[in-house]
């Protein structure tokens, strides 16, 4: 298959073509030609006009859930992969909180086998502890040999510092990565939203910033003590940014990411108890959003993820306290991040937070847009001011608060594994 993209701007900081307007010719799995000269269209199967659009490497999501096995009514690997492609993600790292949890080799094997031959490449994170209970270490090495590079207890957060030390030391021997979502449950308790004026007005239990920050501080100390990398998932507060900034200055091995929606939405969205905005971490304040954007600018925050959490209607259409946490958002995360950041960061820099940096964090090779490289590409229109419609959501679950709202910038096309997907 031969595909030509004309007059497109390359947005890839590592590419020698970065910032240049070129014609790109893709043949099957390979970028055959990149040139500023005209290309022969005759034999092409698809000719795509890239005028005014960016071409960059496929996005890599560090934080998604496809609910298979166990909750296939919310999402499957098939539907999840389509949702990812629709949003420009050619790679996703799936969290281990399936039913049963991914805490052994056969679970890793099952998911990887189910994912073969799709446009989206699936990566699996294993659980740190058996059944995500936070007590006994899972067989991380066995899972590592099967293909899991990352270990995390996801939203359960490892509460027991001693367990996290053992996980860091044990996985260091085979160079796996440990992710932890910072949330001290003895403080956050039964909280359902950010603690502040809005939670006071709603009479809803608050999750104070300190519940996150105290664990950020702890995890930095554990990383130093064990001399091991630790990655902090989905940070959300100004205090966390500041602590990580100091740790990085000191040369500690800390990386972190932020969920795209935490860059755009604040806790005022909860004033009418709309459970689509019930998230973990919760939506914070405008001051937190500004601090997160500053953190992305100075590279305190390495990456942006989706935190894709598909939930069926019944688990959201209920009393706020009883509603599930999370948003189903792979299709809109890039547009959400772009809307929040387009006036603050260089555009190629924004994309690097979603494609090259996530791969670097977990030690995977970073694709570069050059001739003879693998064709792993996203075409993105930065000027498309579009209204998200329910039919744009390919996930089985529609718990996406951006439906019927406007976002800026839209993925037009994704190309990976010789498969071409048009998003419009």
């Amino acid at each position, binding site marked *: 298959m031969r595909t030509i993209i004309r007059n497109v701007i390359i947005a890839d900081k590592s590419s020698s073509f970065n910032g240049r307007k070129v014609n790109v010719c893709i043949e099957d799995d390979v970028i055959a030609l990149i040139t500023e000269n005209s290309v022969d269209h005759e034999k092409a199967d698809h000719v795509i006009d890239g005028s005014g659009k960016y071409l960059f490497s496929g996005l890599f999501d560090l934080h998604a859930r496809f609910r298979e096995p166990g909750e296939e009514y919310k999402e499957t690997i098939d539907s999840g992969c389509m949702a990812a492609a629709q949003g420009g993600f050619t790679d996703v790292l799936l969290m281990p909180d399936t039913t049963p949890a991914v805490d052994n080799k056969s679970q890793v094997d099952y998911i990887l086998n189910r994912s073969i031959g799709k446009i989206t490449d699936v990566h699996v994170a294993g659980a740190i502890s058996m059944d995500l209970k936070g007590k006994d270490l899972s067989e991380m090495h066995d899972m590592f040999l099967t293909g899991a590079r990352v270990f995390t207890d996801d939203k359960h957060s490892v509460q027991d510092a001693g367990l996290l030390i053992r996980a860091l030391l044990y996985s260091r021997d085979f160079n796996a990565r440990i992710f932890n979502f910072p949330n001290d449950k003895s403080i956050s308790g039964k909280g359902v939203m950010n603690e502040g004026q809005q939670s006071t*007005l709603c009479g*809803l239990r608050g999750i104070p910033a300190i519940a996150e920050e105290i664990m950020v501080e702890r995890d930095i100390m554990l990383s130093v003590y064990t001399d091991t990398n630790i990655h902090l998932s989905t940070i959300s507060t100004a205090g966390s940014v500041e602590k990580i900034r100091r740790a990085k200055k000191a040369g500690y091995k800390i990386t972190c990411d932020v969920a795209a929606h935490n860059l755009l939405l604040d806790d005022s969205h909860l004033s009418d108890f709309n459970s689509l905005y019930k998230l973990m971490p919760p939506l914070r304040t405008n001051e937190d959003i500004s601090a997160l954007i500053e953190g992305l600018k100075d590279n305190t925050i390495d990456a942006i993820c989706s935190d894709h959490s598909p939930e069926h209607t019944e688990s959201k259409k209920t009393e706020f306290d009883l509603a599930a946490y999370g948003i189903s958002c792979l299709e809109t995360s890039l547009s959400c991040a772009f809307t929040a950041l387009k006036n603050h960061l260089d555009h190629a820099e924004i994309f690097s937070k979603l494609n090259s940096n996530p791969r670097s964090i977990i030690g995977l090779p970073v694709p570069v847009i050059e001739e003879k490289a693998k064709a792993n590409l996203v075409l993105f229109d930065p000027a498309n001011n579009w209204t998200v419609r329910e039919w744009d959501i390919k996930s089985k679950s529609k718990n996406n608060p951006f439906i019927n709202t406007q976002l800026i910038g839209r993925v037009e096309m994704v190309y990976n594994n010789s498969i071409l997907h048009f998003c419009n």
Partner: protein
Amino acid sequence: MTTLSTKHLLGIKDLKLDDIRLILSTAANFKEVLSRPIKKVPSLRDVTIANLFFENSTRTRLSFELAERRLSADVINFTASSSSVSKGETLIDTVNNILAMKVDIIVMRHPNAGAAEFLSRYVNAQIVNAGDGPHEHPTQALLDAFSIQEKFGDVKGLKVAIVGDILHSRVALSNILCLQKLGAEVMVCGPSTLLPKHINSLGVKVSNNLREALEWCDVANMLRIQLERQDIRYFPSLREYIQLFGLNMEILSSLSKKITIMHPGPINRGVEITSEVADSDQSIILSQVENGVAVRMAVLYLLAGRTAE
């Protein structure tokens, strides 16, 4: 102004000052009706009201029911213990099943904050919030304001202290919003563990000292310690709470002025206030109960009038 600006009564938050004034003046008319030999008026004939109580309540339910019957409405009652909630039916399904029997107004008490607002988005009936978790209890705040106005002539310029478990109290939030709209100054007082951290962002004074609060205020609203809402211990023992925040005659009579004592009920006698205080001439607790019926009649009458337009 003769009609409310809202279709539902979900919270004081949504009411304009004119709405509150209209409810209070209508309540005064109904209070006069309630003093007549024949207390029943035909205003809500042919209106069916369902009282849905998903949480235990005696006085609020009785007060609403009496208000509804005095307005000649048809009334049905539904409590969680006799319901299908325990069989796993969702709130929307439960309510829609009741609405299918042609109900016009729903009065709902629910343990979760925001339940009334949630319901109002999905069902086609008028909703009166009779308390939703630790969020709002608007009719309580309105009857408290009515009682204060009755005693002092006007709420404006008064100083009202709300004492006790502010964290778990829907009465506190609704009272703060209502009293502020009417021009009163509000202070909350209690142990720091029972005060929301950001309560001062609502523009209230905050104190942890009972005597200080009582010296400051004209009216003290003593909230009930809601042990049933506390999933963890916020203070070591009731004994210690009483030592610090229990109001007794000794403190009350040592104050430099005579303040008015209120309580939303039910009273834990000997905990937040002693019997002597509750039954003293400074207490208007029983007037609050009496006024509750008139205020709820006013709310239902005004809401029903809105549909008739």
